[in-house]
């Protein structure tokens, strides 16, 4: 669910907009390193994939449903810079063509989901990858942990923004507690789905999983001779 117009006051919206512009600007340079001149078509198709993956709704209970955010998933699959671009473009298309998420809240949404979601997800993923044994199969739990942390992290940043620029006099501590508990639950679902999707790609095309590159480089050609 995206932040709509009017949830945060104008100065906060403009400030997060500036953060979003800077973050996406850096990602534009970084993505060229990850994808070189293939950036436009590849990031476009991956953004479309993220959008399609977000279309699948899961019943959360009490009549509401949640969907995948995909920040950590995209980061593990295509690398963090390209993931920031993909998620930002998804949010831009949703705001301009689908009226999902306010246009003045676009900066907030990009900051929360594209910058915090992707970078926290990627950071935790890299940390977990370093701690776990260097095998391609270990990319899966690392990706799940990244996804698990990224969702409450984005919720925490939202609660902080709400404390600074929220228009309602609600106790910031209460907002933080409610947001984080609720998003830990969502994060668990996100972690399971992210792990399962990464597992299925690692099983068939490990070369397409950017987060698996160090493990792949280490993998040696193995020649097995038939047993006699």
């Amino acid at each position, binding site marked *: 669910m995206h932040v709509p117009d009017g949830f945060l006051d104008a100065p906060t919206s403009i400030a997060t907009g500036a953060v979003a512009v800077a973050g996406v600007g850096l990602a534009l340079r970084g993505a060229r390193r990850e994808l070189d001149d*293939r950036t436009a078509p590849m990031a476009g198709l991956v953004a479309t994939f993220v959008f399609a993956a977000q279309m*699948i709704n899961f019943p959360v209970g009490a009549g509401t449903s949640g969907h995948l955010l995909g920040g950590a998933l995209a980061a593990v699959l295509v690398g963090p810079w390209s993931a920031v671009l993909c998620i930002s473009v998804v949010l831009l298309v949703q705001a301009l063509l689908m009226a999902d998420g306010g246009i003045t809240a676009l900066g907030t949404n990009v900051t929360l989901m594209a910058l915090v979601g992707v970078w926290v997800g990627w950071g935790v993923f890299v940390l977990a990858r370093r701690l776990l044994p260097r095998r391609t199969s270990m990319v899966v739990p690392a990706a799940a942990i990244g996804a698990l942390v990224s969702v409450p992290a984005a919720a925490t940043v939202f609660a902080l923004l709400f404390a600074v620029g929220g228009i309602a*006099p609600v106790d910031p501590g209460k907002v933080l507690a409610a947001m984080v508990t609720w998003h830990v639950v969502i994060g668990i679902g996100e972690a399971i789905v992210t792990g399962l999707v990464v597992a299925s790609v690692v099983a068939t095309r490990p070369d397409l999983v950017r987060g698996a590159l160090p493990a792949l480089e280490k993998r040696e050609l193995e020649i097995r001779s038939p047993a006699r």
Partner: protein
Amino acid sequence: MGAGHGHRLHFHGHSPVHRAPAHLKLVALLGFMLVVVATPSDWYAAYAVEALLLLGVVALSRVPVTYLAPRMVIEVPFAVFALLMPFLAHGPRTEVLGLTVSEPGLHAGLALLVKGTIGVLASLTLASTTEPQEVLRGLQRLRMPDLIVQIMGFMIRYLDVVTAELGRMMVAMRSRGCDPRSPRQWPTLARAMGALFIRSYERGERVHLAMLSRGYDGRLPAQDAA
């Protein structure tokens, strides 16, 4: 893949709002919404003026209300939050319809509801009167980085292709007795999504090669020509 490439929200028409240049509409939307967001919570007269202005544009666009209204349900979760606001917020208490609620919370909830509703309706008006290609050209004229416009162009172009592919996978899963919404089927669903990622990625590679063979040098010529 015989699906139309028109956007789901676009409503075909020839009103002045439809004909207005997309970059002006984008700037107008952003400016208007910034003013709405910056309006202090209890200036109800200002809200009325803003709402009337927006309704005037909607009327001018001749997009039927019956088309816009069902598409506004997108804001329902936040409307629920706005309705809860008077009960959650602190501050002096007041009585409304026999319920004791927080007075600043009541104002904030109302402001949230009004601003959110104006925002959704204004965004819907842009989306229903502007073709996706026009939005792209508008962004280009507003000096949005070229790479972002290109990525967005590819996303819009392949949205129907990829979502239709996902739809066919879902039909295939359902016809084999699998309910993709149930958490018990998540492993199957995740494999389908993994396959969708690989198909999308490989489609991207094919598109890139096809573009190179037609002389792609980092810029898209079609958007300038049109």
